[in-house]
């Protein structure tokens, strides 16, 4: 469609799927994204969306094992933050269905089925690629609003 935007800065992290890493993962992504001078609300949106994707990898992709979770963050020209959260876990059979609000495969563990809905409403674009037995990659785009870029 469009030419890809120039990358201003990038970061990659990876960590094992331990739930104790959820807060560190969203904090690191938020701290890095802060370079693009987001508003408090934009930063909170990013934090929450990342938390959803990471939690999904922990609880759904690697339900009975510990696997690796990979996050890459790009700050693109035009103050766009592109975040990719990837696992090599179980995968999703029907992505369209999984994205529906309130749809969950684990109601017994008190999941509300709102993770993808939260990611979608707190970012500007969400795409999900998944293959059963191979893993899942979620890409989130957050375009920061008009604002003077801090030097």
């Amino acid at each position, binding site marked *: 469609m469009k030419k890809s935007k120039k990358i201003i800065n990038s970061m990659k992290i990876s960590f094992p799927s331990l*739930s*104790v890493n*959820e*807060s560190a993962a969203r904090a690191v992504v938020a701290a890095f994204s802060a370079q693009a001078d987001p508003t*408090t*609300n934009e930063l*909170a949106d990013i*934090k*929450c969306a990342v*938390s*959803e994707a990471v*939690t999904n990898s*922990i*609880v759904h992709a690697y339900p009975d094992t510990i696997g690796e979770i990979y996050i890459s963050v790009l700050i693109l020209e035009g103050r766009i933050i592109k975040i990719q959260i990837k696992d090599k876990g179980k995968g999703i059979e029907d992505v369209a269905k999984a994205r529906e*609000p*309130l749809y969950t495969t684990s109601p017994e*563990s*008190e*999941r*509300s089925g*709102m*993770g993808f*809905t*939260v990611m979608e*409403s707190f970012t500007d674009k969400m795409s999900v690629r998944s293959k059963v037995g191979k893993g899942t990659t979620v890409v989130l785009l957050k375009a920061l609003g008009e604002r003077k870029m801090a030097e």
Partner: protein
Amino acid sequence: MEKDLFLSDYNEETNTVSIILCGEIDHHSAVIIRREIDNMLLHTHPKNLIIELYSVDFMDSSGLGLIMGRFSLMQKLGGTTILRNPNERIKKILSLAGMERIIKIERTTEKNEKK
């Protein structure tokens, strides 16, 4: 290592359990909080559960699961659940799931939003 995730109180006179959630509510903390709150609810069988959200800095959909789960448990026990003082961020998440139509939300403090 863990910081305090919540404070709780049981008022025998009014048969009310009050829970003050603190800090960050995610999947990791929700699992711990759920276990302890349920212990308390099953011991006291309260008529009312009040969940105070004033001190919550972060909450994702795991918090929705935590709240819905306690609401269902209270229904089974024949009691009511009230949410207090969610900030704007938390209200946004609650309303994505339509929770304000299911659980009573009240405000007991002056405007507490930090901008």
